[in-house]
């Protein structure tokens, strides 16, 4: 990557402590534009905290975040217009139907009403939600929620899309739909940053990955570089974060034995 190109996201010295615990302990990262980026790490690695701080949902203790060259906390107008977000563990306006949610979100984003309704119709259609568009979001399944959340995040055609665990609890059919939409979106030159702990998924989707563990970046770069000599990203990941190798099977010798 050339030095003169503005990265999609630039993170410098990012810290966040909750009490004694440092959830994010000094992250420096430059994420290239126009690629499918995977942020991987075990549970509790600080993925959600990092993404929350990058997208303005959580104020960092210290550090800087720039998106497309604009500081998240100094120039929120420029940043919020350029990003789409699908957080994990936060509710949406679930007493609205899918279509009402999109109509509301688009208008809050300042898009003209007609344009919002046109885009909403297309998104509902592509994401296979047209049949449930009048159902309240609170009655949606996990997969449907992720899809309507994705639609709301894409509505204003952002340059960078941040997705926290977009495939968690999603059925294979919905996952495939989400995948198709995301691939089409990155093909247009946009950047997708998504977090996951499913290595196979990251390996098959992403061209660039950052490995996060205990609040720090352990490795980052193009997928092949991070994987290195290891046969799969899973193996590379386990050796990076120090997963327990070998079987502790002797204590379970009854399992599968005579019944």
């Amino acid at each position, binding site marked *: 990557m050339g030095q003169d190109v503005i990265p999609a996201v630039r993170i410098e010295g990012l810290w966040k402590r909750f009490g004694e615990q440092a959830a994010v302990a000094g992250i420096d990262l430059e994420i290239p534009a126009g690629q499918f980026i995977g942020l991987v790490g075990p549970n509790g690695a600080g993925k959600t905290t990092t993404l929350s701080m990058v997208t303005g949902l959580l104020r960092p203790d210290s550090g800087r975040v720039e998106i497309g060259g604009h500081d998240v906390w100094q120039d929120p107008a420029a940043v919020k217009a350029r990003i789409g*977000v699908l957080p994990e563990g936060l509710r949406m306006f679930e007493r609205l*139907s899918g279509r009402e949610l999109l109509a509301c979100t688009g208008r809050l984003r300042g898009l003209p009403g007609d344009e919002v309704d046109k885009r909403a119709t297309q998104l509902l259609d592509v994401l296979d939600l047209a049949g449930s568009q009048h*159902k309240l979001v609170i009655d949606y399944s996990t997969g449907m929620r992720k899809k309507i959340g994705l639609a709301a995040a894409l509505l204003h055609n952002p340059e960078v899309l941040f997705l926290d665990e977009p495939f968690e609890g999603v059925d294979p059919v919905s996952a495939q739909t989400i995948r198709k939409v995301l691939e089409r979106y990155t093909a247009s030159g946009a950047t997708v940053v998504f977090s996951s702990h499913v290595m196979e998924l990251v390996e098959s989707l992403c061209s660039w990955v950052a490995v996060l563990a205990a609040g720090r970046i352990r490795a980052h770069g193009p997928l092949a570089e991070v994987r290195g000599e290891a046969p799969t990203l899973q193996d590379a990941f386990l050796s990076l974060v120090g997963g327990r190798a070998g079987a502790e099977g002797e204590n379970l010798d009854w399992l599968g034995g005579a019944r």
Partner: protein
Amino acid sequence: MSAPALPSLPSLLGTFAHLKLSLLRNGLRQSSGRKAVYITSLVLTALFAALELIGLIALRGNEHAAALTVPLAVLLALGWAFVPLFFPGGDETLDASKLVMLPLRPTPLVAALMTASLIGIGPAFTLILFVGSVIATAHGVAAAVIGVFGAALALLLCLALARAVATANARLLTSRKGREMALLSGLIIAVGLQFVNLGMAKLNTLHLARLEPLADILRWVPPGSALDAVRAAGEGSYGLAAGELALSAAVLAAVLWWWQRSLAAVMVSADASTVSPDASRKDAGRAADKGAGLAGLLPAGRTGAVMLRSLRYLSRDPKTRMAWVSALVIGLIVPAVNAAQGNGSIYFAFFATTVLGMHNYNQFGQDGSAFWMVLQTISSPRDAYAELRSRALAVALIAVPYTTLVVIVSAAITDNWRDMPMVWGLCLALVGALFATAATTSVRFPYSIPQEGAFKNVAPGQNGIAWGGMLLGALVSAALCTPLIVAAVWLHSAGATGLLWALVPAGAGYGLLIAWAGLRFAAPRVAGRLPEILAAVSKG
């Protein structure tokens, strides 16, 4: 491979009794706040039970004692049957769907669940009341022996009823609509308790003999019949006593059979969460049409979108709906009740206005963690101002006509039309002042509103914030109205009653001005505190 042996009945009973004891013990292992509540409720229940027991024992010898114990038994059974429906989650062993995967047949399961039911604060409390009832009415050895059986039967019947009704309504208890209905029924129960309270107060002043006609009917309704058997045995009517006991036993058997049947049905039928998407189609379609009509009337852009969302939440979100209904009803009832008691005053209109106006005091808390969707679209004080203004407008759509209505009604019931324009003008100014302070309290004192539980409106640990914000806001709102109050008092004392009508437009104008100023003041603070507000409102 042979199939693993099913657990034997005694070990099963032991397991369930142990499970229930663990659940009770775990009540003590929560956060210190909850532990305090748990222990307090234990102590209060014990005290209440002791008082009731003493009261019942004192009745011993009263010839009409059975006229109280029989209706009491029926009332207890009714309570056991229906109260758990309104407070689901009270007893985790009640939820049959948690036991589906265990290799248990319905009959041993019923026995085991019944054993678990016997352990707890509620059963102990009920048993104490039944023992007290027996002591009050048992005269002679035969009556005492019948009393032991009667009390046991009555208790078992209460517990079986609770289980059977809960299981038959399992679908209701686990579905969203059912839980939301339970939320609203909290209001009904609260009102109903007032009536029971009123009745109890009346009863104390009446003679127990007045209950005899009621008891005459209820002695044939189990578990009332089990308790009446004690009285009958004491009077030597052994045949009647045996018949009454048999009736209770037969009803217990029928309830157990019904319970076992619904248990079997619940365990093999589909989970409610996988209903087909078409099920609610018609309903939702209708709702969408209604919204579309409303949307056409509202301004375009953020203002209309936010107003529409607020108004939809008002009708669809159970918590919001309940808060609004309570405020609207209380605002009208309090002036009316006071007028009926001879304390009527047109100035009670201020109370109604304040109750309603405070609805926006935690406006971001009403969004819950969905506030992130708003946060993502606010990047300047201008955006924040538009958001605050739209939310205030949505509430004003209801608050302004309602205030006017309350003022007119108050004037009519107190027949005080002379002060009406002044009160109206001041109320309009107060609405504006409340909107102004609501914007600031929403930024400075945001708190989470838990989704579950009819009576929990503040997340644990945020009570101070909630009350502080409301108290401070109400005081500041009143202070903000000072110029208008001074003008009103001056007009009054100067005897310029003809000019009092000028206070209506003056109040409206002043209210608008102060609301505008308040929102302007709060907007940059909203824009500057977005992540902090999100953190505060996401705890529920």
